């Protein structure tokens, strides 16, 4: 008996050893990296390319990931910035201080340049009209399954002779 069922399935069953070793690390690593790149690409689109919002100097959309065992944890940060680019912001005051527990209001950064509009700084307090959400996180989540499937699939396919 030349060919056997076991031999026919060898390309599949041979994956057992690979999945217990480097193959799984590679799968997680490449999938995580691909998700990070895709998230940053979406971040660039919603921020105009620099991953920053004009009113928050220094704040930048970023993505980090960490692989431990069979798990990869990918974090999109800062939370607030991703949330702003996802859901937008209601109209609000900038530099008007904040309400304390006693009911009084703190002074706030009155007189400070808190926003740059059209190349000109605007001094607080100002009334921000709010922004529309751009669904950045939703767009990222929509891509995650495809990226994982394709990345895992490509590596598994390459692993099978």
């Amino acid at each position, binding site marked *: 008996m030349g060919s056997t069922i*076991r031999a*026919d399935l060898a390309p*599949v069953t041979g994956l057992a050893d690979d999945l217990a070793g480097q193959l799984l690390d590679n799968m*997680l690593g490449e999938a995580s990296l691909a998700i990070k790149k895709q998230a940053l690409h979406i971040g660039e689109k919603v921020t105009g390319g620099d991953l920053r919002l004009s009113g928050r100097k220094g*704040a930048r959309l970023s993505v980090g990931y960490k692989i431990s065992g069979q798990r990869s944890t990918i*974090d999109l940060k*800062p939370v607030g910035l991703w949330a702003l680019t996802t859901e937008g912001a209601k109209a609000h005051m900038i530099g008007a201080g904040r309400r304390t527990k006693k009911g009084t209001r703190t002074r706030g950064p009155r007189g400070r340049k808190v926003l740059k509009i059209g190349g000109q700084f605007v001094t607080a307090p100002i009334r921000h009209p709010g922004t529309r959400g751009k669904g950045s996180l939703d767009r990222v989540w929509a891509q995650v*399954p495809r990226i994982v499937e394709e990345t895992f699939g490509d590596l598994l396919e390459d692993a099978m002779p």
Partner: protein
Amino acid sequence: MSGDVKTRVIIDADAGNAIKEINTLDAAAADADTALKALDDTKIVIDVDADKLDQVKHKADDATGSSRAASTAIGGIGNSVSELPGVGALGPLAESFGQLTENALEGEASIGDMGKAIGVLGGTAVVMFGIQKAMKSIAETDAFNEEQAEDYADAIKEVGEGAKAVLETLKKTGEVTGRAGGLFGTGVFEGTKNITKLLLDAGVTADEFADAVSKGGPALDIVTGKLRVMRNAAAAVDNKDVFDDARVKQYDEAIEIVTESHGNYADAVATTTTNQEFANTSTRGAVEGLEVLGPTLDEVAEAQERAGEASVKMAERVEEGMGRAGDAADRLLGKLDLERAVINWNSSVKEMADKFAYGIASSTAEVNSFETETIQTLKDLGADPATLIKVTALFDDGFAEEDLATLQQILAGQAMRNPVLVPLRFVPDPNQPRIRNPVTGGSTPTPMMAPTNNITVNLPRAAGARDVTAALTRWARVNG
């Protein structure tokens, strides 16, 4: 707002289960291979039985060949000859001839070629036609006349020639050459024509002649008696023109021929009997062959039955093995969809990839765990508030991998590019006058002015007064 935002993706590659399922599939495939191997072994047994069956088949062919020919030749051809019109008029002669035909064909039987047998039948039919034609006229009269006698003689001659033709045909078969020769080779009727006129003169009828040849005894005595009467008459007559010594001699020969004819006929009958025995022997051989074949066929049937049962068992084992393989594959499908993997690698690996779980963090608390832990760690290490503020600012701006270097610099105290206010502990001035406590006799510093905090401003070399103001303003904003 941000409390509901999910900003964490967790790819949970459950390779442990996948590996387990793959190993299960591998074991099931091994089981199936074992079952298939056993089935192949069973096929070998069946092949061996098939060889036996072939051997038996050959035996059966050998054993049934003669009986088959006998049944066709004896039952078919023999009967056909006997039933030919006019043959019955020959009486024992016809019977003998019919029997001869059957026996001749019996000899042909071993050849098993019905085409030749049919050829023999055709030749026999021609001969019988001649006899029929002659005997038809004979039957119309009880006595011989010269013309009828000549016709009879011609018919007999034709029969002899026809019979020889039959013999020639039979000789080609190589089987009955010697057997039929007794009747026609030396010739029962070989001298018939020569004595026809003598028989006619002696008043011998056709029936008397036939009885004499076939039965002998009194019938033969009648014919020979009549001939002897005529012979004696010829011997006694002085008219040599009519009855001379030659005529006497002819009657003597006629008597001898008739007598010998009976002997030849007896031989022919004996030969016929022998041929019949041969046919019977062949039939018995066929029967014996079938009897021998019977047990063998039983063995074959039993072997086939055993092989069938083994095949069923093996099929069940294969089905069971394949079932287990299928079950394992089904289980595996839950993770890797290997059913399609066998059929279509490309699509299946996509399915496999799809089975790896991924998830999204459910709360920002999870996201912030790193920051919280980091701050706490810094506090535990005794980091000053300014450092904590700086690190917190990094977190607020989104802490990324590239921020690690910055964090390390902060922790090393080398990141003070801008003035940072460092709050100091309250230290009593030892030069201040102390107020003695009248009760205790102790003294406290004289409250000449409110206690103050000393603030140290670390400035880079190029810093100016504006930087000092900015630092103080920032300190005031933080500390209220």
